[in-house]
């Protein structure tokens, strides 16, 4: 009996680790795919959520659930949140796309915001950041700084978002260094520190001296630091602890203004289903400080690129560009449209290997 009590108490405390506070007018829920201290994707969502909470004070009650697996479990968590009175629920991983739509159908009065997906409905909005703009800057720095001309890329899950990042980084590395080669490893998960470290080590052992990652933890940085003379970039969060080297810069997600605006919309009753996709210009994508390990001329070029991207003067996917199979994609000076970008599932010319289907 004792054991059963302990067992069920443990499960309950793990499964329902929702933070609750006093009753407020508006209740906002967040569903996270990783732990709130992963140092990356989830941590930054959580910190931005806390900024939102701080902004509204007692007016808003915030609840969250971390480590929610993508799939059926996430539906249960969202349902639980909706049942407990949440007015607005942010689901912060691509894999929550269908679960969000399903749960939203059952709770028409609750507003949902799904990060990085493309399925919307009456009460489901989507929001994402144009991370590929940041990838362009990473690619530029990587192409300029690599000595072995091999750049390792730890890819997570084969979805357009990740493919876009690879393409953008490759195009800009190639532009400044025609000899550059990308080695890409798919690890089929957003976070698994041991696997991320193993992948980084495998890439480094095969000659990569730059590691780009699309995974959530700082493990690749630790592996790079161990190997020495390899540079990395913070992903989602600044990961400044690993600077000035291996981490030389980063892409930082800044969701706080969006979280505040959307919560305000719910409070005002003006919430509508929208599709938001902001980049450096709208400050949803931040570029972390370019460290002293980067030569000054490279840093200046990178910052110039950042300002051209921010002003909209330059688009990372500007023709002429061909697809991997050599077929034409964008003509000279032509810019990719958002529809093409959202569904991008091909490599650009020059990248070796296939995208897992």
């Amino acid at each position, binding site marked *: 009996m*004792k*054991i*059963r009590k*302990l*067992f069920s108490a*443990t*499960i309950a*405390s*793990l499964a329902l680790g929702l933070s609750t506070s006093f009753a407020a007018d508006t209740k906002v829920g967040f569903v996270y795919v*990783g*732990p709130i*201290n*992963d*140092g990356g994707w989830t941590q930054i969502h959580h910190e931005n959520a806390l900024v939102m909470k701080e902004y509204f004070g007692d007016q808003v009650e915030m609840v969250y659930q971390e*480590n929610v697996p993508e799939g059926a479990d996430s539906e249960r968590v969202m349902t639980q949140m909706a049942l407990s009175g949440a007015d607005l629920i942010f689901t912060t991983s691509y894999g929550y796309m269908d679960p969000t739509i399903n749960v939203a159908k059952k709770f028409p009065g609750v507003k949902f915001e799904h990060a990085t997906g493309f399925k919307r409905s009456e009460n489901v909005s989507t929001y994402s950041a144009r991370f590929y703009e940041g990838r362009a800057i990473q690619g530029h720095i990587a192409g300029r700084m690599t000595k072995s001309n091999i750049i*390792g890329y730890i890819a997570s899950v*084969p979805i357009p978002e990740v493919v876009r990042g690879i393409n953008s980084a490759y195009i800009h590395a190639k532009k400044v260094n025609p000899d550059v080669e990308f*080695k*890409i*490893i*798919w*690890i*089929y998960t957003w*976070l*698994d*520190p*041991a*696997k991320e*470290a*193993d*992948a980084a*080590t*495998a*890439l480094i*052992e*095969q*000659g*990569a001296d730059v590691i780009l990652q699309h995974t959530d*933890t*700082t*493990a690749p940085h*630790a*592996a790079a*630091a*161990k190997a020495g003379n390899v540079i990395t970039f913070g992903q989602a969060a600044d990961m400044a*602890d690993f600077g000035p080297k291996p981490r030389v810069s980063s892409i930082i997600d800044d969701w706080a203004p969006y979280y505040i605006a959307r919560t305000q919309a719910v409070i005002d009753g003006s919430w509508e289903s929208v599709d938001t996709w902001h980049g450096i210009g709208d400050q949803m994508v931040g570029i972390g400080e370019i460290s002293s390990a980067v030569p000054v001329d490279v840093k200046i070029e990178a910052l110039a690129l950042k300002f051209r991207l921010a002003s909209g003067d330059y688009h990372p996917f500007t023709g002429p560009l061909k697809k991997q199979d050599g077929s034409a994609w964008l003509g000279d000076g032509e810019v990719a449209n958002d529809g093409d970008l959202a569904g991008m599932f091909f490599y650009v010319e020059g990248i*070796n*290997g*296939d995208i*897992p289907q």
Partner: protein
Amino acid sequence: MDLSTINPALLVASLMISATPILLAALGETIVEKSGVLNLGVEGMMIIGAVVGLFSSIHFSNPYLGFVFAAIFASIFSGIFGIMVLYFKSNQVATGLGLTLVGLGLSSLIGEFLGSQKTELLEPVYFPFLSDLKFIGPMFFNHDILLYFSILLTLILYIFLKFSRAGMILRAVGENHDAAHALGYNVQLVRMLAIMFGGACSGLGGAYISLVRVPQWTDGLTAGTGWIALAIVVFSNWNASKVILGAYLFGGITVLQLNLQAAGVKIPVEVLSMSPYLVTICVLVFISVNGKNSSPGSLGKTFHI
């Protein structure tokens, strides 16, 4: 595709590092299961070892002490399981799962204090002459002490189980606890010691992830390694020599498939990703299929005096 980019020396060195946590945990669990106890808490004990190891390594600025404390704390942690299943006769499966859940939660709590602090790294052991050899040197003779310890431990446990008197008592207790009891052996004591030894081994395995393989803390760091270790014990038919084969196969193919991906081999990534699981199971089942099933007779059964 360009296989020449794979450096075999570095590949073998990495696969040994990748296999060591699994090997340590699986060896410990082999002893536990040989004594007739099924402890599904390997994952929990590993992650406790991982977090305690890193914590004490940072605190004392000494990674070796990190391993010592990881073993001690994981062993005490497994002792809780031991007391529950042996003296309070709780269900081993449920208690083991509980141990994993508590371990994951507790480690995440302790991990709060760690943040992204960094640890000192283990120095490789230097073997005169051998370490300086070309190719063979970096492959086999440039590792840390724990890796050699895990291989030595395999040998010791193999001999212990097969030839030593204490090993036979342990097996007798696991095979038929009533008979062992009738012969005058203290079943509960033997099992308690086995459980705590298993805990210490799992703790070392976990600490190897947080101090060598990754080396840093992240919630859920072990990411299922404990379950792999459990599976390897079963597929290797509770035989220490096959446990090391299983661990090295799994660790090896995990690293190999990453290297093959990076080298751009024309095998679908999906197939490469599942290959460690598939190959390990196939090989171990194949080599075990003709031998007798040496699953301990009293495995998972509660002993009532």
